[in-house]
């Protein structure tokens, strides 16, 4: 019951022979808290149990839908995009281009990222291009020229350096960046 009982815990060379140190002395919890979405300087600000995916990191590889409430007035809105009583659908690149032009930029970005390999992803691509956005093939983000600045074309003509507005799908906002743009990287 005295101090000698603590020796197997604190003697480095004896570790893991008598006790499992990850449970006794424990571990640095910073990465564990980080994996839970708890920033170390702001505990308690954000409730993590509401979006808890799984007790283990290994089984937490996808987001789970949290609790939310949809008021009745948000549902069954009649005749959205002239669809009558049904929900609107986008099944034809030819016929649905007019509908897609009614959406704001952010809605187009949402549809582009949300529905891979679909008609609507193609439609939003075409519409964004019409609005002078270009898709960067490696960064997988959309960008457009900053109207405030003229870019400088590099000798050789393969690229230009300038100021662009990017749409960041992680932070869900437009942001301005100086950037070297290679023409073969965009479409």
């Amino acid at each position: 019951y005295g101090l000698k009982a603590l020796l197997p815990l604190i003697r480095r060379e004896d570790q893991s022979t008598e006790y499992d140190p990850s449970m006794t002395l424990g571990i640095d919890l910073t990465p564990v808290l980080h994996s839970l979405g708890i920033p170390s300087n702001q505990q308690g600000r954000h409730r993590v149990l509401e979006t808890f995916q799984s007790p283990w990191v290994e089984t937490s590889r996808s987001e789970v839908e949290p609790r939310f409430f949809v008021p009745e007035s948000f549902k069954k809105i009649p005749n959205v995009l002239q669809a009558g009583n049904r929900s609107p659908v986008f099944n034809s690149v030819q016929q649905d281009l007019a509908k897609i032009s009614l959406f704001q930029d952010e809605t187009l970005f949402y549809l582009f990222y949300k529905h891979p390999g679909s008609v609507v992803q193609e439609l939003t691509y075409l519409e964004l291009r019409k609005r002078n956005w270009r898709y960067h093939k490696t960064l997988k983000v959309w960008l457009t020229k900053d109207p405030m600045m003229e870019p400088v074309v590099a000798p050789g003509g393969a690229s230009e350096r300038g100021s662009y507005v990017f749409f960041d799908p992680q932070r869900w906002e437009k942001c301005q960046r100086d950037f070297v743009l290679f023409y073969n990287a965009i479409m």
Partner: protein
Amino acid sequence: TDQEKMSLVFTEWVKLLQRVPDDDISVVVFIRQMIEKGVLSSTEGMVKFTNAALELSVSSFKESDPTSDVFIATDAFSKLIVKLLILQEFTDMTRADYFKLMISVITMVISEDHGRMREGFNERPYFRLISSLLCEWECVSGHNFIKMGDQQCRSELVEFNFDFYNIIASFLHSTQPIAFPGFSFAWITLISHRMFLPKMLRLPEKAGWAKLVLLFTDLLKFMAQYTKKNDVPDAVSVVYKGALRIFLAVANDAPGFLVENHYELLNNLPHVYMQLRNIILSAIPKNLVVPNPYDPNLVIDDVIGCHDAPTVFYDPVQDLHALKKPVDNYLRIPSTSLQRAITTGIFKPEYQKDNGIGYDTVSVDTKLINAIVFHVGIEAALEKHKTTATAIFNTKSSYYTLLASLLNDGNSEVRFHVVQAIANQLRYPNAHTHWFNYVLKNFFFAEDWGSNKAEIQEIIVRTLLERIVTNKPHCWGAVVTFADLLKAPGASITTFQFIKDVPEVELIIKHL
């Protein structure tokens, strides 16, 4: 056969839900017809149908292509259960009893499947059933069931809501890991489910807390049973990691739960889980600002929080049993006969195995000791509130002498467990932390232990040190108390023989 008929009805239900949205009129009509045609009108019918639906859901899961949607039937069943709870009129049976019956059948099916299949048991469809049931319930119960048009029905459901979660919690208690090891990982995922745990934590009037403590106790008991000191089976080690993350999440979202239930949780926590113990004891009520415990100028008496007693959800007096009268009588009017009754009443009838740091067996009733110590602390804080601080910050007060006599009359083992029980109350700044800090300091520097002085001092240093050498978090009260021992005037504790006898510890203390 009846079974076949039930299976057909359920199959039709699954097909229907894949074709129409669940608020379509045909869904309501289907349920109405089920009720009118008497599919579920008797208890027997309900049992048969639940059995059939669950069996179909599980076999559909097993037979589905793993890359496809394997839970179609299971999800349909969850939705059916919720529809039945909402759309029926409950005349012969209450809604709660109806739901209890369905859950009992589900429990029996799990039990039978688990027993029959052994290592071949697959927990996933059963997990999905309960998970989807929780999600569906969440969907209909939002904003106090505002989606219910019928006001009568709505108020019934608002009342039933607590029963819903209570019945799920009872189901989980019945299917705990010790009973159904093949369901363990699904079970741990369910008790921490985003549609269950936060709900239970925030039911009005803490209505979910007692059951939650029960479930956490089930988990801790399972871990305690199978944690060997150095030979933790890999799967148990994984269980521990999951438990750790769950407790950290609870400490973040609802520290009050850990604050008010620390006594019960620690009663079932294996001693070797030192970091987890610290996580539970380091919980601080939201919005409380805590002064830096490492500040060398900190004086605990001046810390404002120490005026207030912490809220206690479970009164430890319930665990005193035969010693309740002697303890309460002693606190009013101390006497040697009462003292003897208490100091001799804390032993178990026989040795038990235990998993401690430095010991393998226990012959004292540690739960009883924890209850006595905690109860005395609660009473002391109440006394301070009723009268004055000097009534309890006084080595002649009955509160102090009761604990001192436990040390004086006890052997090393008793002393150790009493000091551990006291250290478990050294938490965030509050009246209990404050008083037990006083008790431990006075125990350390008292001159009337005779030849037992060194042993008592060593046990106190060991107990505090083991809570500070771990990785963080460290309890505010433990750090402050240890600092008080180091700061005390007179000979430094590093000159004490029992510390010099252990050079590694001497080094740590010098560093601190």
